[in-house]
């Protein structure tokens, strides 16, 4: 405890100056016995300015890398289009993984949707050959549902916490049926497997956890 002769207050501190006015304590004021500062020194968790600077540098670095890959590997230059798309995808995935890290099922559902959209866009900008709908999306769908099921079992997530996401993913997994209806794909094999798998999962979840789904539905959809 010290005395600040400017603020005329007793200051609970071990420092050499007053936290209010910043004036250094005189010899007489310093190091007097008494109460200590009740507020511990807790290190900074981050520094907003530094974080912002580093993220900007990283973004610029990755953009450069994208352009380099386009020139050296793909032997073409789409300009900033692919680089911007890549960066957007990168930060979206980082954001999803971080913000949904506490619920694996939700995280997988979000990633399933974002990856599907990414592949459709990539297919579109590279000539719209339909590979996204024929192969990519059905594969992503099957493995998302499988991954979610395994993950929630491994970490022992409570039924109520994942059952809705499992249902949503199963329903999303049925969406490729539309690709068949509109005849957007030539080879329907993978889509049929994906639809069959989603349907199976949907029925299994409904059969074993129908009550939980109803309970969650009532809770979450209350108006």
């Amino acid at each position, binding site marked *: 405890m010290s005395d600040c002769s400017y603020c005329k207050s007793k200051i609970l501190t071990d420092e050499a100056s007053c936290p209010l006015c910043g004036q250094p304590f005189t010899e007489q004021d310093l190091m007097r016995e008494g109460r200590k500062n009740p507020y*511990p020194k807790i290190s900074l968790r981050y520094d*907003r300015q530094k974080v912002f600077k580093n993220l900007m540098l990283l973004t610029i670095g990755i953009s450069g890398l994208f352009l380099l890959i386009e020139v050296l590997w793909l032997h073409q230059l789409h300009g900033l289009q692919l680089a911007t798309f890549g960066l957007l995808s990168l930060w979206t995935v980082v954001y999803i993984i971080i913000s949904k890290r506490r619920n694996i099922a939700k995280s997988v559902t979000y990633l399933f949707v974002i990856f599907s959209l990414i592949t459709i866009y990539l297919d579109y900008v590279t000539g719209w050959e339909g590979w996204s709908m024929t192969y990519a999306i059905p594969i992503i769908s099957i493995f998302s549902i499988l991954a979610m099921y395994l993950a929630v079992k491994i970490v022992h997530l409570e039924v109520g916490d994942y059952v809705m996401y499992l249902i949503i993913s199963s329903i999303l997994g049925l969406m490729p049926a539309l690709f068949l209806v509109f005849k957007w794909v030539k080879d329907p094999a993978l889509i049929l497997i994906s639809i069959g798998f989603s349907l199976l999962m949907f029925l299994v979840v409904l059969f074993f956890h129908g009550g939980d789904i109803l309970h969650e539905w009532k809770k979450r959809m209350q*108006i």
Partner: protein
Amino acid sequence: MERKGWVRLDHASNIFLAARNSRDTKVFRLTAELEDEVDPVLLQRALDKTYAQYLLYHSVLRRGFFWYYLEMSDLKPQVAPELLPPCAPIYHFDHKELLFRVIYRADRIHFEIFHVLADGTGALWFFEDLIKEYIFLRYPESFCDMKKQEREWKDQQTADSFSHYFRPQRAQNFTESAYSAFRSVISTSKKAGKLALRLGKKTSNYVFTDHLPTEKKRKVYQVKGKKTPDNRMRVVEMSLPTKQVLALAREQKTSVMIYLIALFFESIRKASPDFQETGTVSVSVPVNLRQFYPSNSARNFFLTTRLEYTYGKEMDNVTNICQKLSEQLQYQLRPELVDEKMNKQLAFEYNFPGRLIFRPLKDMILKFVNLWNNQNLTIAISNMGRVDMPEAIGGRIQQLVLLTSAVRPQFCMISSGEKMTICFTSPFIDTTIQKEFARQLTKQGVVLEVAANQVTAAELEE
């Protein structure tokens, strides 16, 4: 498997969720400073016992499609040493965690709570019981030779009978204790036929003003400054003898709270170089509704009043500011105006037109409402008043402290025994306003003890 109880979150608490961000965490802290170093083992025992009696505190917050809801959990709280800055975030999306924490350091026990769960008065009930329980365990000898009357009081406390009357929270089931205070009041009042609350009206029909009828709206001064690097708050704690500040308030013929608000206004004027001679400063003051409508709910149950003062109209001194603020507060606390506000709140609870709005959108709307409200505020204060405890307990408590996360400079005041604590919190690094406040008090002979936390890399390196 037994399914857990859940209760939809009320609107009054929803605003805290919408307005919450990494800087303004909507967490507040109650602290008790004791005589000796805190014993974590005993504190854990005291917490276990208190926790078992308050079901509301078993809640975790979940998100639905249209609403948030509180859900009963099986989690057990653990006391922990103080390793985070004051009022660090408690609620994280998707994380099932209790909405409070009990931490300790040296001779202090801190209870931090997310405002969505309870307001200051509600939280104080839990905190008082926790501290009492801890003191019973820590100093059993004090209760051996205490007077008969006090021993009976202690027995009543432990037998849970006395407090049942005042704190039915303990006896209720989870759903009842988590129920909105506003709704519980209306259901009991309806039965008793005491309140003629007009629930049929749409919220938009309510037109009323916070201000004296002659007042015109003016642009309100906003404090600016460099914010802390990691969003922690600057805390400046001031302890002073209650008697001294009471005497100063009496000299001004006003209450301690109004007197301290006047000093806060003056501090802002003196500390801000860009403050104009005709500037308007305003303060938000929460008022406990339990004094108007009897309620034993620990959930949020307060209304906010807004007081303001415009400089340059007459003699700008503390006496005049106190007088103007007192008039405004009296006006806003007239029973008919409180009823009107209560009606508005209830209509909002019952007839909210946006029920079918998707929750994230609702959050966004409330966020804008909150930002708009913030435009009209310079500072905020919170007054917990005096906390009285029996000598055997109170004698062990050196002082109580209340502080809250803040989006603008703010202070919280609480007193116990002979000591009052005024704790400033602010998102800004600068402490000039707090310095001016302290100097105004010490100039009049108040003995002030000041403590502050460290917020910048330079301060932490010293």
